[in-house]
């Protein structure tokens, strides 16, 4: 049986397989090649990913990915719904960082409407966005460590994940797919008690991250299985359209929150972790550090939000935003507006926009086209997972079959986001 050589140093040149980048082609001269079907229903595929793997001993010598098992036609469905109803769908596209997908859609519609959002909504969007980043990274860390043997990580990570979901429940009434962000602001005011709970979470989180690192950073098995595995150089990462933690782990200092600050990211203090190894370990380090930074951002948001108590949480624009519930009993005008928005929907001026934000998985983008009517003409999500999964073949060069699971886990593709 062939022994897999470890190459912990980052390679020179490009490793993107030629001539077909999708597929790592098997060398026809090789004998004794075993073709193995991996997935689509496999616990370590993070959904329903199917890989067809050619093995030579333990070596991965050929690879192709089959996706689409989770294709639900969100983009087609959203063309049939009003702008207002469409807010429900994006959260279900990438169901692990649900809040961020909601955000990018809402920001795109607001850009076309040229709608001003009250500052309280902006800061709350930031707080919940970062909370969903922590949630997403916890799911990544728990599951991908579980897959390569560190079972206890799963329990630790899901312990804190539950606290994050409790916070979502406190604010929105549901634990996932909240539909809390509305075009114009937030659906409801921030409930009493949120600030204290969020503070307690922020206090706990850095200690919890210390615990995760205490389990993994010195863990020999973890280090053996992640260091120097799944290498991706900076040039290859850019050529393959990688963004977010995968790009930052390859040594590219690129974060939209710093480069093109949206919301109020230019007013908060945080650092962007960048590592240069380009391997599974560095992708883990980037995400763990990001959890600490996100905690810092949340506490700053809470400080600012507390000063804004009593301020409006949604724009005062009756042509787009639902009137306050209590007005419906007394005001005819409000009732008409409510009826019009709910039945017919508001109209968005003609045009096309693209908005990109730094989601937990990289640049999540939303491209929308409006013909001036109450329904979107075209909605397209730029899915970071779609690009991330495309890098599997480049990362799996020189990999052993067991490394493949570490590689797929570390790229952190969510199949809902890949297939949409």
């Amino acid at each position, binding site marked *: 049986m062939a022994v897999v050589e470890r190459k912990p140093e980052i390679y020179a040149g490009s490793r*993107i397989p030629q*001539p*077909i*980048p*999708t*597929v790592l082609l098997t060398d026809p001269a090789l004998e004794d090649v075993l073709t193995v079907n991996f997935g689509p229903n496999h616990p370590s595929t993070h959904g329903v990913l199917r890989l067809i793997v050619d093995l030579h001993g333990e070596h991965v010598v050929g690879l192709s990915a089959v*996706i*689409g098992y989770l*294709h639900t*036609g969100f*983009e*087609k469905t959203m063309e*049939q719904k009003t702008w207002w109803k469409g807010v429900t769908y994006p959260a279900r596209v990438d169901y692990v960082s649900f809040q961020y997908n909601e955000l990018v859609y809402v920001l795109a519609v607001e*850009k*076309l*409407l*040229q*709608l*001003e959002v009250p500052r309280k909504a902006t800061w709350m969007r930031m707080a919940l966005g970062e909370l969903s980043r922590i949630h997403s990274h916890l799911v990544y860390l728990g599951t991908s460590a579980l897959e390569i043997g560190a079972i206890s990580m799963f329990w630790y990570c899901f312990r804190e994940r539950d606290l994050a979901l409790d916070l979502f429940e406190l604010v929105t009434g549901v634990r996932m797919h909240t539909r809390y962000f509305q075009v114009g602001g937030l659906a409801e005011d921030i409930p009493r008690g949120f600030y204290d709970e969020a503070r307690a979470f922020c206090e706990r989180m850095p200690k919890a991250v210390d615990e995760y690192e205490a389990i993994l950073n010195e863990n020999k098995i973890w280090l053996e299985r992640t260091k120097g595995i799944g290498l991706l150089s900076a040039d290859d990462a*850019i*050529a*393959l*359209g990688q*963004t977010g933690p995968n*790009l930052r782990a390859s040594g*590219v200092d*690129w974060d939209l929150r710093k*480069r093109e600050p949206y919301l109020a990211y230019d007013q908060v203090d945080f650092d962007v972790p960048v590592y240069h190894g380009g391997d599974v370990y560095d992708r883990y380090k980037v995400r763990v550090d990001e959890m600490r930074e996100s905690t810092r951002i949340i506490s700053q948001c809470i400080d600012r939000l507390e000063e804004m108590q009593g301020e409006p949480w949604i*724009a005062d*624009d*009756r*042509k787009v935003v639902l009137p306050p519930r209590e007005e419906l009993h007394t005001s005819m005008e409000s009732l008409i507006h409510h009826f019009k928005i709910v039945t*017919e929907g*508001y*109209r*968005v*001026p*003609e*045009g*096309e*926009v*693209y908005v*990109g934000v730094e989601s937990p998985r990289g*640049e999540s*983008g939303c*491209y929308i*086209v409006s*013909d*001036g*009517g*109450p329904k979107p*003409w*075209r909605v*397209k999500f*730029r899915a970071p997972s*779609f*690009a991330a999964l*495309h890098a599997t073949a480049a990362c799996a060069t020189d990999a052993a079959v067991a490394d493949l699971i570490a590689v797929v886990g570390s790229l952190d593709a969510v199949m809902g986001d890949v*297939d*949409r």
Partner: protein
Amino acid sequence: MGYEGVPGLVETNEALGETTLVVDPARVFEACTYLRDELGFNLLLDITATDYLGWGATPVAGYYGTAGGRDLNDPAAQGYERTPEPKSTRFTLNYHLLRVADDSARVRLQLLLDDGDTVATVVPVWPTADWHEREAWDMMGIAFDGHPNLTRILMEDDWEGHPLRKDYPIGGEPVRFSEAE
């Protein structure tokens, strides 16, 4: 930022802070190579096809106005029938490009295509285009010349039609055990 040198440039549109370069579809490969090598757009974010079949067929009525200071008493804010500006071709194909560098920038490259037109692949320029082009083929039926593996990606291999086209029905699943059987 000078985009005048982009090969095959037809038109440059600025709207809502976004730049759209409309390029002659026959010269897309040259244009993309130029944008990558001369202007530094090293990261291809996305390729999106849009179907404009039926665009403007029904006039759009209703109200909308501007943010803040929207005057509800202004008659123009109450709306009247209007049609969106007509499109010259059925499809557009949009390449969203990003420059990952200290002077970051974004640009949208747009091609105007009719049904049946083929476009040169840009996989040699940005390898990530591979899957995006396959998605555009699968969902919209835009064919790419020279693509290494132009097969369906999200739908099954034997699927018929391109689901995101406007003439593709939303329902259409045959009803089993209906009275007709």
